[in-house]
């Protein structure tokens, strides 16, 4: 792109066959006006933020397809198809500059662009999809003849295991090394034999998305290098300020620094847990008090949450020590647990100040035997969840609304409804972080006089 003169680019292959979704393989050679540079990027950022929000609210794949369709039409559409296409490409490359500059930014951008690509791909018809697969130059052969015959029975078993009552096997299957379709392997949605996965035509999305993600990931590293070595300095009076501003307008609060609402002390902690903790943290907290122990997953989830609510390191050490020493003794506590508490506060090892987990991360965790972390709306059985909600003070009517959300797998909406029922107010923003739940709760309680613990 001509805005950045120092980069040599070859003409883009993207416009040649004009597929509906560009693959962003190389930056195009074209002139871009400075205003467009920023405006296009901001519009794309609105789309990416919408995607992020949808994922955080636990939208299912069909809902995400619709959301992406809406967002794209709202922010990226242009009556002139070639202008729209160029905007797509330019905005992507500008945002690469913005988001290549740190690991956290890279991770966010990669996740959102991949999700965007995935859902845009799903919205295409089969022919368009096949064309895109071809664009990636994937050398996968279709399985035919005797080999396919030999696999038919087991392929049918796979189809039935996924909920289809009749074992109709698709016409086309691709033989792909299993490493290239990790999500299909993980969910046992494909037959695997001698290192190869047999991917149905309709499952192409997975293949393609993996390729896309891998390509963008590598590109971000290269872009970062170019940025730090040449571009940042050269453009310090022109593009650099724009690029830097674009990223900070973005991330939602990460709760790693506690705010004025949230300095809690050890003596208040039991009361505050009852009045302001979301269900996940309340459960963990009660278990610590009851068992005088928590396994690693629980210690991380609760420990970082407490840090986010403003529990100071010394108070945190005192809290965990008071409970754990009842079970394991003071010496073992110092040896085995104190280190990792200090580690969480950034006082040991590489001294990263770890951020408390957001709902999306907690929902995706996998509590096993003896664990109490995770999201109760997802991980508890219906009976246990009802009992826990009862203890939080929900009426049976309030509970039905929550259980309904749970059945539809809208765990964060379930938590939001719980919040609304407990505090008697509506929460339009929706809960997507346990520390957000805590802060909103504290705001409400402090504005009422006198504060009423549940």
């Amino acid at each position, binding site marked *: 792109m001509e805005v950045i003169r120092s980069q040599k680019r070859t003409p883009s292959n993207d416009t040649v066959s004009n597929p509906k979704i560009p693959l962003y393989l190389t930056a195009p050679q074209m002139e871009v006006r400075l205003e467009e540079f920023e405006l296009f990027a901001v519009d794309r950022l609105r789309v990416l933020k919408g995607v992020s929000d949808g994922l955080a609210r636990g939208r299912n794949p069909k809902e995400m397809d619709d959301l992406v369709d809406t967002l794209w039409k709202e922010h990226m559409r242009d009556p002139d198809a070639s202008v729209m296409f160029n905007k797509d490409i330019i905005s992507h490359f500008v945002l690469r500059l913005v988001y290549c500059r740190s690991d956290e930014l890279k991770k966010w951008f990669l996740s959102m662009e991949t999700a965007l690509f995935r859902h845009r791909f799903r919205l295409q018809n089969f022919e368009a999809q096949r064309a895109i697969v071809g664009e990636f130059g994937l050398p996968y052969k279709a399985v035919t003849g005797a080999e396919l015959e030999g696999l038919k029975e087991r392929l049918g078993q796979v189809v039935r*295991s996924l*909920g289809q009552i009749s074992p109709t096997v698709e016409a086309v299957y691709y033989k792909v090394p299993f490493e290239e379709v990790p999500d299909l392997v*993980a969910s046992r949605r494909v*037959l695997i034999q001698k*290192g190869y996965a047999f991917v149905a035509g309709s499952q192409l999305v997975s293949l393609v998305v993996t390729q896309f993600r891998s390509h963008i990931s590598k590109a971000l590293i290269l872009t970062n290098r170019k940025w730090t070595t040449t571009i940042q300095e050269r453009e310090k009076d022109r593009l650099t300020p724009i690029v830097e501003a674009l990223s900070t307008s973005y991330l939602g609060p990460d709760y790693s620094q506690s705010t004025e609402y949230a300095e809690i002390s050890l003596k208040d902690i039991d009361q505050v847990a009852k009045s302001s903790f979301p269900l996940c943290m309340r459960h963990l907290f009660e278990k610590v008090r009851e068992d005088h122990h928590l396994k690693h997953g629980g210690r991380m989830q609760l420990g970082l949450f407490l840090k986010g609510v403003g529990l100071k390191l010394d108070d945190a050490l005192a809290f965990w020590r008071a409970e754990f020493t009842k079970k394991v003794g003071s010496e073992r506590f110092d040896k085995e647990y104190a280190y990792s508490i200090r580690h969480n506060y950034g006082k040991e090892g590489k001294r990263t100040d770890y951020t408390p987990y957001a709902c999306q991360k907690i929902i995706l965790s996998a509590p*096993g035997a003896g664990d109490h972390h995770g999201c109760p709306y997802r991980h508890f059985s219906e009976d246990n969840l009802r009992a826990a909600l009862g203890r939080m003070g929900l009426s049976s009517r309030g509970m039905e609304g929550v259980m309904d959300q749970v059945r539809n797998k809208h765990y964060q909406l379930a938590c939001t409804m719980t919040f609304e029922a407990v505090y008697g107010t509506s929460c339009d923003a929706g809960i997507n972080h346990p520390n957000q739940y805590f802060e909103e709760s504290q705001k409400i309680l402090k504005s009422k006089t006198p504060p009423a613990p549940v």
Partner: protein
Amino acid sequence: MVREEAERRGDDTMIDAPQITNPKPEDFFNVHYLRIYYGNLFPYTDIHKWLSYGHDGKHPGCDEYYFGRREFSFTLENDVYLRYKSFKSVSSLEHAIKSCFPYKIDIGAVYSVDPDKRHAYSQTGTNVFTPVERELVFDIDITDYDDVRYCCSGADVCSKCWPLMTVAIKVIHTSLKEDFGFKHILWVFSGRRGVHCWVCDPKARRMTNEQRSAVAEYFRVYKGNENNARKVALMGYSLHPFLARSYVDFLKGFFEGELQANQSIFSTKDKYDKILEMISDEDIQSELREKWEKSANRSSLSEEAISLVRWDQLKNTLQSKKHKAPTLRMCVEEIVFTFAYPRIDLEVSKQMNHLLKAPFCVHPKTGRVCVPIDPNNCDEFDPLAVPTLSQLIEEINSGGSKMDVDDDDDDDDTDTSILGKSIKFFRSSFLEPLLKSCKEEIESLYKTKIGKSKDSFSW
């Protein structure tokens, strides 16, 4: 045989090995024994050969720095933990171990640069300190099965519950070979109550964290803790071929045979209530409960026979009623999977930088050596018969075996010591085939590289 020889010889250079009548922890494991073990018995050369994967410097295609980029960690007496240790050669590894006699040795990943020197490299740019290769590993621990074994709990293990590990090995090993096509798989006893698996194919070592996670999730069936009752949920109209094969070839037979015999899972109300709770239909639960309560005192059958009868009744009831709800469709299989299917520790497998205990280490709580297990004969493996430090030392005392474990001589068939058998197995069934394949790979990669550079000069 060994003892008779000892009595005849009357060796007077006895190494201190106390009679174990009322064993105390120090009798199993102490620094003194460790010195002898690491001084004379630990197979340094074999471990070095394994982890060098053919890069022994004898071929121009070898990477002579490969071994030096592997992370080891030592845990010393007093819980001192030393990470990021690396060694240029087998002699520096040996020297380091013999200078501090670690209680535990862990093996980590192969990094982009010597772990020892990682601080010399910045975290950005091209020379980042990051893992580049690491075996695909699995850790199965019997404490994760505490909710389905009645003979022991916690750190104990016995001949009645160990078969859970055996069936886990069979299921996972078969899948690694048949489904994923892996060839170089090492199974190791963890020393007390579990097993570790090391998949060493080049493809496996180069897997990304995401791919490792995918394989771990592929193996995952049991999802639960005390907060949910139905911990295995098999949806759909049939089992995935991998689960179906595991069920038919291993799990069903094990459940209806050995498991019932050892654990009698239906014999008391507490036990069978737990199983009834897995059935998501209250009416069926009550029907069976009533039936069994009535028959509780009347039966003259053994515990095992009662269990089998009740299992048959449960199966028949579910078979006739399975159309009532989708969650009943595979309830029988769910119960079998809950009890018998492998429960791996996902976190161990998912990340390249996760450290895992080295084979041939000694477990501090039991004094047993972490010996390899033959997956094709794992029914024969007995965790309570694994050599302990004190046994090995007695063996040295009696001088009844050849102790040259580090001997490079591959034709050495005279080593009949207890540890020697394990080492021989390690060499012949794992190390030799692995090294052969590694060398072939190094050669062919080298030929390709030479071929390419030749081409670049051709006009």
